[in-house]
């Protein structure tokens, strides 16, 4: 058994022999409940270096950033700045230490001017606001970034890209030394990305260390000096860009542990239930087309923010599409509201079960009957308690919801059991088409297997299912076909036998399929062969050797 050769050659600590790193994360571990989000991760950031952080959804990137910026604290390990161990208990601490982060959704005060947005957090600017000086200085900061904005104008009118620029300017004005950019390009146009990169380049010249997170492979390879890959909360490799290739990066990112996954039987799907042609919604997704058959599970793969949930919301009428055709059993339909969708037999189980799926303080039974409440009312408008209870009991038994009573508040259940309640409430509406958005996110293994069994059972009874999931092994194991989206566009539809982790991820990241074909293995085969094995090292090494 060989280790990933690249990782062996370049252990992280020996990155640049001459200079000392500005910021070091040393053996950081962090767990939430039973899930290990980060395990023994180390990372060094150097002055004037653009360091890209790569990893699938859930690889631990966000947790690492949150620890660096003081939003969360590590369980073990330490953070060092200029070689000194530091404690970062809040975002203000991080700011003081010269560490700032820019997120996809900037934190802007729409009613304040651009200049004020830049300087509002400063405490040492005298007792009186000198607008002229502030605007001059704001202009100077923006000039350092080669950006021209009217600094006296309120921030309300700024585009997302401009708001990000303001955030960067804010960071610079605070003498930032480490700037973390979490998917800054996710919602920018090509032109805006160019401009952002010019800014990043000028920051680099000024000696700022930039940690750059992006799902766009070509951007990562264009801009970064160093690339670190995380997977499953663990450090995989840190390489200079010259020694990394997109294909290698993708191989290092995939290969999450797939053991204990449910294995589905192949079945012959029925007739076409739902047919979607060129479905689009301005600013969300474009030209999505697919057929969904009775008894079929269509997986929606892609990275977070690829527009998969938006397609689900459009099909459920929460945020309807503005163009395209939806046919249900051959009839063209318009879905303008959730009520309309439900009347057509479409159900959508949300990815955010705590905020959008469940009324946590209310009982399990009231949650289960909520969408079909009119059926549980008698003529006087009173709830038929007996019918409601027995329905809830049925689901409790069928889905094995673990609770002392169906009258217990839903919030008292574990994540997995809450998910079963969400699924129950939609099954009670007797849907023909069931859209499951991240059905197993944040639930434990046991419950996950049960949800998978349930999906299989529903499909075998003829239900048409769309399963949106960011869990790659799950998508591959559960789906008859896999639709891959990237940045609002449909990249590919794979049959199960053609779908491999590499191909799906490559499509999701906008890489061409060709340079990866050497490593394709049928997903089903993989799911069984790699059971319980330390697949990561093995398969990666195999891939690397073949290359």
């Amino acid at each position, binding site marked *: 058994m060989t280790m990933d050769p690249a990782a062996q050659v370049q252990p992280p600590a020996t990155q640049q022999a001459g200079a000392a790193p500005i910021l070091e994360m040393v053996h950081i*571990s962090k*767990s939430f*409940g*039973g*899930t*290990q989000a980060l*395990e*023994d991760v180390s990372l060094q950031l150097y002055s004037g270096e653009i360091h890209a952080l790569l990893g699938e959804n859930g690889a631990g990137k966000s947790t690492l950033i949150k620890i660096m910026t003081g939003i969360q604290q590590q*369980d*073990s390990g330490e953070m060092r700045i200029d070689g000194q161990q530091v404690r970062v208990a809040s975002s203000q601490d991080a700011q003081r230490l010269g560490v700032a982060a820019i997120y996809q959704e900037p934190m802007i005060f729409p009613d304040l001017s651009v200049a004020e947005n830049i300087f509002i957090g400063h405490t040492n600017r005298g007792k009186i606001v000198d607008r002229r000086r502030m605007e001059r200085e704001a202009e100077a900061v923006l000039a350092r970034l080669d950006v021209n904005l009217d600094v006296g104008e309120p921030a309300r009118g700024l585009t997302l890209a401009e708001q990000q620029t303001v955030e960067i300017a804010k960071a610079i004005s605070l003498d930032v030394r480490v700037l973390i950019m979490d998917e800054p390009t996710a919602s920018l146009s090509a032109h805006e990305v160019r401009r952002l990169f010019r800014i990043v380049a000028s920051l680099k010249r000024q000696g700022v260390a930039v940690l750059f997170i992006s799902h766009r492979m070509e951007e990562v390879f264009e801009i970064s000096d160093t690339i670190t890959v995380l997977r*499953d*909360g663990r450090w995989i490799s840190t390489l200079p860009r010259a020694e990394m290739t997109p294909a290698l990066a993708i191989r290092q990112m995939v290969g999450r*542990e797939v*053991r*204990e996954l449910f294995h589905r039987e192949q079945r012959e799907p029925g007739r076409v239930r739902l047919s979607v042609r060129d479905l689009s919604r301005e600013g969300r997704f474009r030209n999505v087309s697919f057929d969904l058959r009775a008894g079929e599970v269509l997986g929606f793969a892609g990275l977070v923010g690829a527009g998969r949930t938006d397609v689900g919301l459009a099909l459920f009428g*929460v945020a309807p599409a503005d163009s395209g055709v939806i046919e249900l059993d051959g009839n063209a339909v318009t879905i303008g*509201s*959730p*009520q309309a*969708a*439900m009347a057509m037999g479409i159900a*959508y189980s*949300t990815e955010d079960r705590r*905020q*959008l*799926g*469940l*009324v*946590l*303080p*209310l009982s399990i039974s*009231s949650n289960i009957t*909520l*969408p079909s*409440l*009119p059926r*549980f*009312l008698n003529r*006087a*408008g*009173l*709830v038929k*308690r007996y019918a409601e209870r027995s329905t809830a009991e049925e689901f409790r038994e069928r889905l094995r919801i*673990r609770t002392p009573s169906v009258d217990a508040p839903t919030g008292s259940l*574990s994540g*997995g059991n809450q998910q079963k309640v969400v699924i129950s*409430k939609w099954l009670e509406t007797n849907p023909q088409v069931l859209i499951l958005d991240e059905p197993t996110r944040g639930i*434990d*293994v*046991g*419950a996950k297997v049960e949800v998978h069994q349930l999906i299989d059972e529903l499909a075998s009874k003829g239900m048409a299912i769309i399963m949106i999931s960011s869990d790659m092994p799950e998508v591959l194991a559960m789906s008859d076909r896999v639709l891959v989206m990237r940045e609002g566009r449909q990249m590919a539809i794979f049959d199960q036998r053609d779908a491999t982790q590499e191909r799906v991820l490559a499509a999701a990241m906008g890489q061409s399929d060709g340079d990866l074909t050497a490593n394709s293995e049928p997903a089903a085969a993989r799911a069984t062969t790699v059971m319980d094995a330390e697949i990561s090292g093995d398969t990666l090494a195999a891939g690397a050797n073949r290359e």
Partner: protein
Amino acid sequence: MARDLLRRLRSWEGLLLLCLLVVLAYNISRVPNFLTIGNQINLFQLGIEKAIVILAMTFVIISGEIDLSVASMMGLSAAITAAAFEAGVPLPVAILLALSVGVGFGLINGYFVAVVGLSSLAVTLAGYIGFRGLARLLVQDRSVGDFPEWFTNLGQHGLIGPITLSIAIYFILAVLAIVVLHFSGLGRLTYVIGNSAPVARFSGVSVVRTRLIIFMMSGLIAALAGVLMTARLGAVRASTAEGFELDIITVVLLGGVSIFGGVGSMAGVLMATYLVLNLRNGLVIAGVTGNTQTGIIGLLLILSVLLPNLAARVRERLHRRQADAAVRHHQPPPGDTPWVTEPG
């Protein structure tokens, strides 16, 4: 058994019950025959209109909104009844007119909140000022009276034995409110929307319709209370029911309904109603004037939100301290795989 009792007492309703017993004991000790029917009816009769509006306000606040305009609506409805009657409209028609204005303005409040999407606080603040203004416009600075005897008799004398019409209506409405809030579809949706309107939307529930119904109900009940008050007092001024919204909202919050919506029970609110009636009575016995009682109610209002907040904060702090301690003691063993820890 003892522990069970203790737990029950520690709940909000338990605390209410305890307060109620104390106040009741005080009243009984100071007034002979306090618990006789006659006394109890007098007790209710003094605040009966508020008690009626409290029932509707409970729905409004549980659904996550607020209606500051109820007291002004009561005044407006009284003014409409009086002005229309004065202008020669038969009294039953005048009453119907007042009730329909209540429904109409309730719907207008609901429209701006549910459809336009403005905050109920701002919308009903406008109603609070505006409805009172309309009442002033109608009766100006006069006192309009001279209603037919049957009307004032209904307000002042027993209908069924010593029980007045208002009290009868109150008890019917209270039973209705319990049934609707806790056993009907509308009541269920009230809780759902108060807890999370997005969940309701994502479950295909019509949030707009439910909100409209609740505000309409609030307007109607307030108008009804205004008419009943007219009958009881026999005279209408523009300032009729002025300041009642304070009492009404206070009792609802005191009854354990969360100002942020989604939490509360009719039992708690009914208990709080009875408590406040007794409290006011006790204060009268103790020689405290009506104005000062209002101040004490104001204080209660603040405390009924402040105390649970502070308690929650203390609990959170304790909890965090425990959690911190737990983290310190529980370092995960190295090499633990991410999947296997959490039990089903």
